[in-house]
């Protein structure tokens, strides 16, 4: 039995969710899928925030991951969940490895703006690409997972289980990473880049690595959502989507790998119900909540925003 509480909770959640899965009503499974997927995206954002960076463009990789899964189905005839997610990973690694070289040179507002710009570039590209359905996007479905064909009625559970496993793996992996030397450098960089360089470590290298990790997590989340909903569209790359990820990240805080999943679940729940009962005020609720958190709960925020860089 692992010693620390977080790992025990993660393991417990994994077992409970997988076990309870077949008995969950459709709507609950759907909401959990989305919550776990978005939690994965925000987990990546959390890593970036711990490094002192706020990305306003995670939608880029979220959308890329989704479309990678979608294109695998629509253009390559692949209906395997595992292969789709692999495609998501491959695409996001490739793009982020390149873009990261550039973005690692920016901080603060400019990092946020540049990341936003790239996500909007993808949005613009997709909207004008008729082969991919333009603004309508296109649909996808799954028939197997890791080569095992899905029996009748088990496809939904397979997607759910995939989301649970990915989220679990991501959370556990992140926890181990943050506990390692390179993971600890994130907080050091956020606090004082100069000192990190003057001890002999490369700030750019760590930021680049963390950027790629966050991109992959966003891509996995996007792939999972695409598979869950059975549809992908360019809106996933629009800046407001990225904005929602930022909101959840703020709400969750950066204290623990469980936080993003909690925050995403709360967000998803509130949004679904608020949207159903009062579609014209849920953004109002969101905005006010955000302000309250920023003004009164800097405890969740302070660790992100008390940075000191080159004097």
């Amino acid at each position, binding site marked *: 039995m692992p010693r620390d509480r977080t790992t025990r909770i993660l393991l417990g959640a994994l077992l409970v969710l997988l076990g309870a899965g077949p008995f969950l009503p459709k709507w609950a499974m759907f909401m959990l899928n989305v919550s776990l997927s978005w939690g994965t995206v925000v987990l990546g954002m959390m890593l970036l925030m711990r490094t002192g960076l*706020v990305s306003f463009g995670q939608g880029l990789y979220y959308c890329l991951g989704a479309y990678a899964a979608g294109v695998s189905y629509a253009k390559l005839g692949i209906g395997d969940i595992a292969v789709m997610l692999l495609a998501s990973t491959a695409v996001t690694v490739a793009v982020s490895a390149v873009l990261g070289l*550039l973005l690692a*040179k*920016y901080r*603060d*507002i*400019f990092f*946020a*703006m*540049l990341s*936003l*710009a*790239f996500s*909007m*570039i*993808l*949005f*613009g*590209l997709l*909207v*004008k*690409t008729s082969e991919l359905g333009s603004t309508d996007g296109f649909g996808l479905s799954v028939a197997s997972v890791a080569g095992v064909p899905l029996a009748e009625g088990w496809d939904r559970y397979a997607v759910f289980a995939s989301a649970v496993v990915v989220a679990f793996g991501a959370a556990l992996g992140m926890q181990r990473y943050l506990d390692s030397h390179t993971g600890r450098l994130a907080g050091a960089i956020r606090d004082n880049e100069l000192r990190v360089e003057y001890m002999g470590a490369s700030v750019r290298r760590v930021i680049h690595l963390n950027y790629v990790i966050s991109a992959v997590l966003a891509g996995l989340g996007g792939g999972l959502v695409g598979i869950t909903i059975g549809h992908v569209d360019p809106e996933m790359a*629009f*800046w*407001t989507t990225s*904005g929602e990820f*930022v*909101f959840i990240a*703020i709400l969750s805080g950066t204290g623990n790998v469980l936080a993003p999943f909690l925050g995403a679940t709360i967000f998803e729940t509130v949004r679904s119900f608020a949207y159903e009962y009062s579609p*014209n*005020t*849920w*953004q*109002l609720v*969101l*905005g*006010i909540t*955000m*302000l309250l958190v*920023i*003004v009164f709960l800097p405890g969740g*925020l302070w660790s992100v*925003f*008390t*940075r000191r860089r080159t*004097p």
Partner: protein
Amino acid sequence: MNQIAAILIDGIIYSSWLFVIAVGLTLIYGVMKILNVAHGSLYALGAYAATAFGGYWIAQGHPPLGSYGMLVVAAVAVGLTAGPLIERGLLRLVYGKEEVVLVLVTYAVFLILEDLTKLAFGVDPLSIPQPYGLLGSIEVGDLIYPTYSLVVVLLSVVVGIGLAMTLNRTRHGKILQAVIHDREMAAATGINVSRVYLVTFTIGTALAALGGALTAPTISVQPGIAAEVIVLAFAVVVIGGLGSLGGAALGAVIVGMVRAWAVHKWPEVELFSVYAVMAAVLVMRPKGLFAVPEARKI
């Protein structure tokens, strides 16, 4: 030859519109160091207000030409109400926090205003076509343009020159420049920085609303225009350099021309061309073209 003229004129028209929209944003950032995401919402409010005021004016049977004046009135009204409300009511509470936190605060305001606007004006598209077609059209060679566009261009020039002269020739302008360059020093010399903030934010809001008011006659005003505009304004302002008036003008021209070229020559990239330019500029000049230089504080 004709196409080049068309691109140029389209570019000028679009640039003028972009300038009016973006200049308030860069002004607010320059003075207050806040990148106001809600700028798009204030633009939308201006559009809605213009529709309401203009529609009322015409419905009352007043001379239709006066509805142009109503556009400006609408913008000023929004500026004078929303501006101080947001600045005094909310921003005061968060001054001093990090830049990125302030962006998130304005993002929250954007969310709030999205719904408040929906609640106030409904979700159905509104329009006020009247003043638009009123002045007829002008011909440039083979090309026909609505005279309204000329009005927009002229107005943007007036705004630009007016702001430039105010900043450089008047006492108030000099005070603003002082705050832009070093807020602490300005305060130390007795400048009421708090009041400068209020005035600046109000003016910036009014300018955003003016952009919306000017656009109202040409589009159907509906929820969602705020989100589209804000990223365009960002692109213009970031390209030109945050806080620079000249930068906003240059950024507007660049974005306007690029988009006009894309629309005519390569429509597929129209949407993403703006952001591609933004990314390209940031790569070459990480702080934009005319960024206000920051003294290094060692």
